[in-house]
């Protein structure tokens, strides 16, 4: 099966190269920021946790959206990921709920 048509999903990869390097730089910066922020006290350990998770989510979002091309992906993939996200949240939240809601006699 020889190459008869050009890859059409991302037609100009040259433009994308700058984007990839830029996002890489942003990720490096976020890493440095999260390390620095971990030495700042935000009041409670819960607050520290939330701050760290927000930065991590931003980094994860950049990797997912740009490097994994999720921003331009198809609905089939989105559906699979939405289902997965729902179930993983269910696992976390319901297990946490069970942990925090023991029987009271």
């Amino acid at each position: 099966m020889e190459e008869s048509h050009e890859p059409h999903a991302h037609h100009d990869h040259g433009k994308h190269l700058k984007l990839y390097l830029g996002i890489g730089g942003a990720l490096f910066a976020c890493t440095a920021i999260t390390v620095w922020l971990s030495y700042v006290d935000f009041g409670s350990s819960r607050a520290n946790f939330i701050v760290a998770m927000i930065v991590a989510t931003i980094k994860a979002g950049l990797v997912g959206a740009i490097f994994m091309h999720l921003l331009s992906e198809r609905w089939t993939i989105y559906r699979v990921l939405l289902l997965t996200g729902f179930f993983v949240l269910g696992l976390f939240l319901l297990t946490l709920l069970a942990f925090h809601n023991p029987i009271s006699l």
Partner: protein
Amino acid sequence: MAHQVSSHEVAPHEHHEHHHVELGFWQKYVFSTDHKVIGIQYGVSGLIFLFAGFTLMMLMRWQLAYPGHVLFDSPALGKLYQMIFGDKMIGPDAQGHPGVMSAELYNAFGAMHGTIMVFLGIVPTAFAAFGNFVVPLQIGAPDMAFPKLNMASFWSFLLSGVIMFASFFVPGGAAKSGWTSYSPLANITDQAPNMWLTGQTLWIIGMVFNITGSLLGAINFVTTIIQLRAPGMTWMRMPFFVWANLVTAFLLLLAFPPLEAAAIFQFMDRIAGTSFFLPSGLIVGGQQVHISGGGSPLLWQHLFWFLAHPEVYVLILPGLGIIAEVQANNTRKPLWGYKAMVFAILVLGFLSFIVWAHHMYLTGMGAAVSTFFQTTTILISVPSVVLLTALILSLWGGSIRFTVPMLFATAFLPMFGIGGLTGIPLAFNALDLYLHDTYYVIAHFHYLVAPGTIFAIFAGVYHWFPKATGRMMGTFLGRVHFWASFIFVNGVFMPMFLQGMLGMHRRWYDGGASYDVSKVVVWGMSGFDWNKVISMSAWGLGLAQLPFIFNFFYSIWGGKKIGRNPWDATTLEWVAPSPPPHGNFDVQPSVHRGPYEYSVPGAEADFILQSEPTSATAPAAPALAH
């Protein structure tokens, strides 16, 4: 921009890829990447494991009916028993004759019966075997999307089976902590001679290989169904069997990994001395255990049941799919409520992920979380009832042919009904307080799996055997097999409801004899006495399989030869030759109709194949319309 990549590049390839590299024996029959060979490999292995798990149960039933008696009251068998399992596992009776199952061996058989039946028996047979063989054919594909991955999945599964089987023969015997392998027992049990060479650890290793095989298989199924449907095979033209397998594959894909995580944790606990599931201050045998503590036994239960609840839907859904196909075919009319069934099965699959803690009502959960799980558990009965009702209503007005597959399919309906309806009391926290871990639960789930899925498996075997071999299985032996199985399976499980309601507990090695002091008698028998009825029915059920085994092997070479479509069915697998060659179809079919065009008014025959063009789509050009 997103221009149509014309699919004409697909059709011509079907013709010119005839390299005819003649594959050797090993590549054709052992390390094959052909989905049909792999399906048969799964099927034969699965049936063997089902038989092995059944044998374990038959031995357990002797112990339950006649605790303390030598095996089958035969000194010769008792001696053989001891030779196989050793004198630590097989003890003497009151007179000193060897051949009495010890409590440890009973527990090992119980745990392995569950594990083998669920993970090595039903899933490979109902899902992997039939799914692999039939799904690509039914959607008009030449094979699965990833044939090599398919082969890898099978071998991973087989390896897991070998490991599980080998675990019987290590010192200390097989895993004994239930198929649910609860911590802390599963962590601390079985320590000799070292942690690696014990049944419990091998159970974990076997499970990891089994889960890997299932995950890879699930990926294959979903990709194949999404990507390889023939032109014209829209989602709502897929046979219900394909929908059932799609949902099952998703359940396996997303529910298995947390159990893999838990299995790794339990493995670390046993091998590396961690305390994932061991709480602080744990005392075993009067001694404080030398561990760091800080773990939670409940974590194991949550992660285990997160899989194991969707797993039970994995066990039943392919069976429902098979029954739908067999039923539509043998009633000569379309399924009633196909769309409702499709939506019901999707909702069922979705809800199955958020009901798991109904297995944990007695672990000390508070009101909020119990209420949540009770609500979702009751909700999930709704799509189940939709499915059963649609199947029952589909019988109305049909011209029913009681072929052997149809006998099993018809019996499936009330049996599935009993199994499902008896689950409803268990959904309620208050009732489950009494019924949890009693024989009532055993009866409930066995009604779904034994006269449920296993009957569906039998129906599927009799139905698709002609496609796989080009020959029919014998009808007379099939009827004997059906009636004997039907009668005995009810004899095994119906009394268990009674025993459960009388309070008899699961996993009691003496069959409730010590509980019998309550002396509650129903219909002339105490809970314990019913064990004899159940056990004899179980042995009868075992004998009832002999006609099937004989029929199966005999018919491969001696059955009546048939052509492509002996059942006059409408779905695409009956377009291919019997058996289909590598690549399945002479010409890729294109689909013009729904899957159940039976008894269409005005048609010549009482069935029309899916690939038969309608007057609107009659092909004018040679290139297939899509």
